[in-house]
């Protein structure tokens, strides 16, 4: 016989995971950006012909005007820290040892900031308005992390 009283149940746990491989095609626009960092160590952006806003990372269309961003322009390498955080807890999404500095950095000539990391600096010394530049990996594969991080422009 089974006990009809569910209050006496000790609930069980089922442990599992969902593992689904994806192949995300970057598309022509992002591919041109990724080729720029891989082959030439350059940051390339797209510009809206209507409002002249320059988007990095590049997008095919201007979200504001809903027009195609037809023009390519080189931005950076100098960039300014717009905001940042020093991640101190080893959060599950962070694939490296903490502390890790995440930042939004706006490359010179761009109207938007791009999300990346700050390195080669004491995390306590990072500040809004700080000048930085990308540090590229020696071996590059056409991936956002071909930029290892942004580092202080001086020194």
């Amino acid at each position, binding site marked *: 016989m089974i006990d009809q009283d*569910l209050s006496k*149940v000790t*609930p069980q*746990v089922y442990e*599992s995971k*969902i593992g689904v491989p*994806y192949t*995300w095609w*970057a598309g022509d626009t*992002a591919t041109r950006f*990724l080729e720029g960092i891989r082959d030439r160590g350059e940051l390339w952006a797209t510009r809206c012909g209507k409002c002249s806003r320059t*988007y*990095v*990372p590049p*997008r095919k269309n201007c*979200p*504001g005007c809903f027009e195609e961003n037809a023009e390519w322009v080189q931005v950076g390498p100098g960039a300014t820290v*717009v*905001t*940042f*955080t*020093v*991640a*101190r*807890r080893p*959060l*599950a*999404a*962070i*694939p*490296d040892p903490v502390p*890790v500095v*995440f*930042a*939004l950095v*706006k490359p010179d000539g761009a109207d*938007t*900031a*791009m*999300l*990346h*990391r700050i390195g080669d600096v004491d995390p306590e010394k990072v500040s*809004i308005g700080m000048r930085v530049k990308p540090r590229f990996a020696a071996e590059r594969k056409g*991936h*956002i*992390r071909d930029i290892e991080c942004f580092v202080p422009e001086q020194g």
Partner: protein
Amino acid sequence: MEKIAIIGMGMTKIEANKVSENFADMAWEAVNAALADAGMDIKDVSNLITTSNDFWDGRTISCMAVGDSSGAREKNCSCVEGDGTYGAFYAMARILSGSYPSTLVTGHTKGSESISSLITNAAFDPIYERSLGVDMITASAMQARAYMDKTGTTSEDLARVSVKNHGNAKNNPYAQLPMDLTVEDVLASEMIADPLHKLDCSPVSDGCCALILADEETAKKFCKKPIWVKGAAFCSDAYFLGDRDLAKPKSLVAAAKKAYAMAGITEPTRQIDLAEVYDAFTYQELMWAEGLGLAEYGKAKDRLKNGDFDISGTLPVNASGGLLSGHPVIAAGLYRMAEAVRQLRGEAGANQKDGAKTAVVQGLNGLCGQSHCVWVLGNE
């Protein structure tokens, strides 16, 4: 606009880890509570909207799986992926179409079953961003810093939000984290991602909330104290964080403007009696209060310090304890709406704002408040 009312609400207690109820069991509890509250039978509701997120449920088309315990069988049931306030908006639109006298809306999340950092990391662009390792907390930390830099808001100011909301939760039977805290306690808690301490962040939570919306005729038939929708609107900003000025809640200002215009609110600080806002992090309560016009930009910290946002103040914000005291992600905005309903019915017990007639509720979707959904509710 036709009159639309909230005529029933049901909340499960928000808990860190509900072991006795799976996601569907939570819906069963909340839906039955909402039906009982409205004095309705499931047969009185012709249709429903469920709100859920497949990643958090660990199940694709999970809206289909939650239907059986929500009363969806042989009914018109549809789903919203996002915050519950957006599900409620869809429910309202259905009723306004004239084809549905009432609509049941639910929202559920069991945050305890997965790893929020990995789930929110997956909200970032896979080509340009995701591999960097950013998640909701670190992204919000960047927004907090941008806001503090622009407004002069300090860590002590943020801590006061945590002290107030965890204190308010002491009188809320549905809250997960009632706590007596001091500003020093918050500042001494673990620094997760500067400038956000552990006690600046909402917890991982399980919970389900259900509301029943109805047209005027149905509301008057079933409900003694219908709470009326005076205005509702939502608005989106850019997806990429770097496209936005993260220090300013632009899309919230736009959504509030529309909702207030519908509700005839011209002076929110005078005409609104209380607010329930999406305080996933302490700084967000201040930013969103400003976006809702409850304080000038950068001045919410002063109103908070002055006690204006306390339950005993002129404009209580998150008298319920807010999300800092329990944050079932997708259900979060529906909980805010339900808490406002409790207040407007005069049923909020020790947390009651005396004579509350008009409340504003805000939900959001996307990283760092990309989109906001604003509701103005009233009891007259």
